[in-house]
């Protein structure tokens, strides 16, 4: 197994379209790293550059300390699982899995042993003689994973491997891949646009947007201490609520004044140093849905209340999502665990836990304090 290092890696296509704008990523040995971001953020292109399927415009990629920029995919000692499976339709499951080993001239006995072993791990033993067309989507994806693991490569690359599966199978395969990572103790790079997959699978997550890396951190670090507004909004479901407004100092106390309706939120002491320079300046306040509760009365001085109309109620079973508006067009979400569910159209008071809020600069969108 090996580490992977991307240094100032850039990808520019013909016509001047820049897909990846000079990224620096260090992937340690045996680490499970997830690239996540919206469509067109450059995550798949970055993965394909690691695989050698795309040329690098500038920068270097090294695998296990060796620069691989000009090394063809077959000599990089990597294996890749594609979103659309990419199984060879004219070969059986066994032949699909054995193909890479046969090309590398492994002894027949070893090929047989490795394929049988992988088939056992992936519960594919009874399907070895079938052609891909006779398999279900989940089975095909397992064959694609099996084709990668028989090779015992230095690095495994996954390009949105679960996107074509239904929700239930996706959850099942998610845990299977995580289990596989623990069993094989391999370096794995996984691309997804699904932040739930990223949060549940990755040791480390690389959040990308417009060809740039926004933040690299473990899942919970990303969730609790996002470095900018994009990461804060992208990680977490439902997404973080953002309120536009300004900081005002009234009688020595700091308030966040929401822009459109001038709702006032009293800020706890702990933000005063960081927000001193932002007096009367516009910024973004962010708060996660679980930090907005339904309250009859202020339960503590760190809770700021706001009266709002309930627009939509989504009971999920173990929790309820409440979408509410404060009179302007902005919609906010509260996530509550409660037996008393408000009715749609009801005007109720929502409590904002001011100890859990984040502030972002209006211009740079970087985190000021959280």
């Amino acid at each position, binding site marked *: 197994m090996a580490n992977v290092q991307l240094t100032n890696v850039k990808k520019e296509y013909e016509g001047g379209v820049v897909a990846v704008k000079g990224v620096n990523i260090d992937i340690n040995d045996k680490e499970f790293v997830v690239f996540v971001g919206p469509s067109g953020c450059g995550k798949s292109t970055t993965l394909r550059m690691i695989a050698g399927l795309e040329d690098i415009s500038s920068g270097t990629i090294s695998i296990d300390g060796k620069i691989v920029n000009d090394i063809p995919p077959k000599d990089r000692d990597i294996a*890749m699982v594609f*979103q659309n499976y*990419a199984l060879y*339709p004219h070969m059986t499951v066994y032949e699909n899995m054995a193909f*890479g080993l046969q090309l*590398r001239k492994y002894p027949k006995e070893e090929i047989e042993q490795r394929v049988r072993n992988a088939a056992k791990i992936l519960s594919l033993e009874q399907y070895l003689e079938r052609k891909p067309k006779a398999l279900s989507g989940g089975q095909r994806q397992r064959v694609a994973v099996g084709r990668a693991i028989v090779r015992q490569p230095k690095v495994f690359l996954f390009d949105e491997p679960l996107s074509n599966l239904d929700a239930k199978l996706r959850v099942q395969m998610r845990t299977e891949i995580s289990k596989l990572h623990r069993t094989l103790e391999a370096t794995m790079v996984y691309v997804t646009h699904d932040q739930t997959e990223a949060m549940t699978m990755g040791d480390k997550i690389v959040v990308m947007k417009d060809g740039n890396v926004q933040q690299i951190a473990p899942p919970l670090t990303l969730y609790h201490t996002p470095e900018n507004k994009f990461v804060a909004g992208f990680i977490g479901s439902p997404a973080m609520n953002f309120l536009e407004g300004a900081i005002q100092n009234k009688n020595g106390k700091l308030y966040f004044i929401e822009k459109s309706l001038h709702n006032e939120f009293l800020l706890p002491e702990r933000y005063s140093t960081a927000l001193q320079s932002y007096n009367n300046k516009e910024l973004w306040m962010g708060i996660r849905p679980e930090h907005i509760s339904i309250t009859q009365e202020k339960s503590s001085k760190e809770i700021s209340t706001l009266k709002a109309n309930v627009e939509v109620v989504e009971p999920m079973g173990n929790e309820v999502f409440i979408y509410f508006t404060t009179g302007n067009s902005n919609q906010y979400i509260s996530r509550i665990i409660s037996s008393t569910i408000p009715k749609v159209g009801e005007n109720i008071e929502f409590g904002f836990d001011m100890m859990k809020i984040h502030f972002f600069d209006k211009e740079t969108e970087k985190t000021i304090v959280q």
Partner: protein
Amino acid sequence: MKKKSTNLPLLIISYSILIIFSIIALYPTLQVVTISLRPSNSLLSTSLEIIPANATVNSYKILFTEKPFFKWFVNSLFICGVVTITGVALASTAGYAFSRYKFIGKKIGMLSLLVTQMFPPTMLLLPMYIMLVKLHLINSYLGIIVMYSATAMPFCIWQMKGYYDTIPMSLEEAARIDGCSHFQVFFKIILPLASPALVITALFSFMTAWTEYVVAAQVLQDTDLYTLPLGLKSFESNMGTEWGLYGAASVIVTIPVVILFLSLSKWLVSGLTLGSVKG
């Protein structure tokens, strides 16, 4: 589920039309078989019997004993075999290049191939004849093989390119990661998947050469070099046509084509790539 109701009068009309057209298509073929079996004294009989009462295989015997029919048959098989192999080999590789690679002149190349298909072959006859004379290829196997291969190639390349375009790129990428070189990707992954298109290309190349008369009549002048269509035409003379031989030869000419279609039919299946990738 409710069974779909059948409209009987409509069904009768449909079947009647189908039967009429089948008869129109089959009757001339059967007539040729009948003529080939008639004794020489009743060639112009107006009887509608398919197998005549005094049927004989004499015409077939004469073909192989008194006429150089077997020689023409071998000539045709040889020429068509070489044209087919050349067509498949060149069209499969050229089509792949046009489908997968970016190179200068790709668009113009494809367009030029298409434009050549817009001219009737007879229009190209004179320039091609002059070219072959200058190359000293008139009255030779090589001359006719070059002519047939060149005229069939544009269609075959377009056909192969079109099929390659439907094979997902990710299959090639997976093979490259698995350890294939460019050639291995082509031979181990792409060609097996393109077998339906290869079969069509092979059939097209073979059929073009097998039934062609006009070009062969210009290029091949020596009776020993004749292909089957030229041989058939030779039974027709100023004094009269040997219809029995003509019929028997026609029947034999169709046999290799039928065998070829039957043996390749299992490859003429669509959807070979089914199951390789999620559509």
